[in-house]
């Protein structure tokens, strides 16, 4: 069980957080003009990265705020966390 740096609260136990998969997938604005395949990509398809992964977390049993984390899926090292809307840090 690791610890995670909530950008609002600081370092907290993993049990306070839930993970919600790949980050930086904007909801399309032109949903009507999308093909089934394009829409399917947005709804169903996610990267299955080995290594550095940008992902969404929420401090569910804490401040209830969402944020993004950069996690190495091999080592579980979280190199940084940042607020939604902030630019992802370069790795």
């Amino acid at each position: 069980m690791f610890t995670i740096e909530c950008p609002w609260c600081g370092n907290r136990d993993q049990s306070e957080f839930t993970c919600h998969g790949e980050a930086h997938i904007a909801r399309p604005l032109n949903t009507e003009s999308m093909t089934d395949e394009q829409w399917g990509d947005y709804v169903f398809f996610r990267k299955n990265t080995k290594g550095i992964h940008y992902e969404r977390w929420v401090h569910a049993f804490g401040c209830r705020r969402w944020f993004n984390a950069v996690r190495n899926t091999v080592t579980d090292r979280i190199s940084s966390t940042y607020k939604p809307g902030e630019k992802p840090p370069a790795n």
Partner: protein
Amino acid sequence: MNQHLSDKSGKTELRLAKGNGVDTGVAVSFTYDGVSYQGVKGDTLASALIANGVRLVGRSFKYHRPRGIFTAGPEEPNALVQLGEGARTEPNTRATQVELFDGLVAHSQNCFPSVKYDIGAVNSLVSRFLPAGFYYKTFMWPASMWMTYEKFIRRAAGLGKSPQQQDPDKYEQLHAHCEVLVVGAGPSGLAAAKSAAASGKRIILMDEQSEMGGSLLWNGATIEGKPGVEWARQQVAELKAMPNVRVVARCTVTSYLDHNFIAAAERISDHLPLSEQERAPIRQRFWKIRAAQVVVAAGSIERPLLFADNDRPGVMLSAAVRTYINRYAVLPAQEMVVFCNNDSAYATALDAKRAGAAVTVVDLRSSEVVNASAAATLVRDAGVEILAGCAIAGINGKQQIRSVIVQHLSGDKRSLSGEPREISCQVVAVSGGWNPTVHLHSQARGKLEFNNDLQAFVAAGNVSASDEIALMNPHLMSGACNGEFDIAACLADGWSKGLQAAGSSADSSSDSSEANAGGITASAAEADGLCSKVAALWTVPTTHEIGQGSRKHFHDLQNDVTVADIHLAAREGYQSVEHLKRYTTTGMGTDQGKTSNVVALAVMAELRGTGIPEVGTTTFRPPYTPVTFGAVAGQYTGELFLQERTTAMQPWHVANGAVFEDVGDWKRPWYFPRGDEDMHAAVQRECLMVRQSVGLLDASTLGKIDIRGRDSAEFLNMIYTNAWLKLAPGKCRYGLMLNEHGMVFDDGVTTCIAPNHYHMTTTTGGAARVMGWLEEWLQTEWPEKQVYCTSVTEQWAVTAVNGPNARKLLSKVTDVPLDNEQFPHMSYMSATVAGVPARIFRISFTGELSYEINVPARYGLHVWESLVEAGDEYDVCVYGTEAMHVLRAEKGFIIVGQDTDGTVTPYDLGMDWIVNNTKADFLGKRSLSRSDTSKPDRRQLVGILTDEPETVLPEGAHLVSAVLEKPPMPTEGHITSSYFSPNAERSIAMALVTRGLSRKGEKVTAQLMDGRTVSATIVDPVFIDAKGEHLNG
């Protein structure tokens, strides 16, 4: 044969005058297998049994062979006992770790009817039918063979028995944080704690034993000019006096998890006399520690030698024999043979000799090596015969050793030569070298490397700065678990690791100079040879080939696995460590192979003609030793196991005989039986009374979210499928929420309280999920929108008043007009009800005239009671969730999660009217036109009427078009809701049926589990009041 019966004082022939850890003057009574014995204060169950001459303590797992106490610590594979009786009984406790207390009761396990006469021992006779891979081969046989073997295997597989009653003891979880956690209070752990503590930082020192000191309790070392055991006591006293140090004994660090999260189980009352255990406020404490640094000073575990008959009761690890003599004042036997491949066993020979035993040493190493050993020379000078270049070829005696047969090893050490010699003894003390206790390092995802001097795995020394996994769990290995066996070096290592862990030392390189050791001087006991010069002879030959005769070489005593099994696995191609382990079950017992893993790898390496590290290492997993479930659960049992939520009206429900059902964490009244009504009768009556007059439902558990802000309407317009921009203040609207897959995931009524202010309701079970859903979109996708959501579920108590007399009843207690003109269906008013401020919503989940009255929760009970009283003249009925379900089904209203299952769109529900396709977008909209979601043959929600009106179909029953002779039959869908409706005077059901919406009037057949078939018709899911006239009262 000697009978070592104890007298009242606990003195026996095998009890010595004094030991470092016992008070031989204080007797302690206990019962083992129904016989009363005396031990002394400080004994473990194992030491007390040995003192009483009890050598046979159990039967082995597979062959039911007699087994005895093998160790003096957590690695014990044999002496697993059933401790205690009744609700407090605990299986598989290691007798070597059970502290003796007055009134202790223990039983041997895995034997019937008794440990001496065991019926299962017949397995021994059929042992060639139970080879490695037996279980796998059995499972692959035809199923009928498994049926034959199952009974036999199940009976044989059990170790102890779990208690049948509820655990009467209390446990607690404790969270702790520290800069340095020191695991193990042997010499290096104590040194590490001392040097780290000087920093003033928070230090926790934990040790699993009753007394701290580790090997100093028995190894006779001298530190700073005094006996090691006295030095240890002084260090512990000094550490306890420091305000920044927590010293915790009887506490096993069991698990090392990521980011230095450490779990430990502390035994608080287990060692107390039985009467005090029963009164103890806490039995065990489960620590959850987050440590910045961990110093692992967990010591080492001795290895056995793999020789013929090495599982006989009386074969013990050499250091265990020494521990019993020096710490527990017990001489394991009056005649002993010490059998070794390294120098560390000579101290055992000397201590046993000095304690009065007749001792012979059998050393596998050549006379040149033995003659060069200082330790051996000392022992020989003390009058002990040393047989170098020799091996034990077998043991005479089954339940107790009578003698050993010793023979010379041939030149290649693969066979025996010369005349066999028989040596009389009752105990064989073996040492095959030492394994550093790397379990926690391994759990911390640390790597291991093989040390050729020690012939053992040690923690890999250098961690590269790019090794993220290793850096994730910063810890330092110290002392014997770091491969350091010299006492002075252990102290130096501990001292320097303590400094390093506390960040007090700029120089992190460990050097064992005296300055770095904090000035501690130390020397080992006489003849305490280091665990060096280990002879790598893993399988000691006997008079016949491995697996060819009656003498077995056991390497895993707990799981009863022999060297012959490893040979078989190798022959059958199971040569990698992971295959070997699973095929032979090596190391898969409760001891996790603490004494067996490395020797098993070594034998496989021998067979493959390769090195041990090439075969692999085994991964140690938490927990280090078994932890009782009670400790893990801590205080979170009974009422604290799961939070129970109740509404403001709960006292009334309880006082009026409600039967409750669990809905999420909520306790909701299910029905309110009157007289001797059963559930069916009560629910039928409640349903009738609501539609005939008026009923009250406690609807407080519905999720409620207060939504405010400039962009609220626009937000709702995206969240729901229908139109929300023009909802006027005072108006209510029903909405469906879809996920982006287009599937229904919640529903409810949302009301415009005032401009830019809404009151949303959700399902009871979906409240938290919906709140999270709203927040997710607001925070991550539309942060610019000014919308603020607040959960107010607990703030409002809700009473739903339903039925033709609802208006009359409510008008008695409120000040607002309730007629259809001024307060129409789907509207809201702020009002006073029973003298308190209220929000009244005219919405209906029954199809009847209905008002949902929301009041601040603190007034909930008062308003409820006022409504019950006002309803008296209308024969008001208080009803529960079951009647609520029937009433809504009579109208065809869905329950999300019952009639939907995450695969159902609004169109599948026949609710096209709620999808506003003129809106540019809403969540899930685009998915509704995907090829799959819009295909015609989807499952669709319909009503089902059985041909026989009395037959109520079971929910979940599958529907078929054509009944075949036997299953499987292609299913057309399944029943989602099904009841007997007293208002429709027949059974009613809802179902998801393929193309159901276009099949109304068609026949289907329900195929039931008991083989019956029930014929029914697909209909509209509205079973009463199709025109909706009841809504107006």
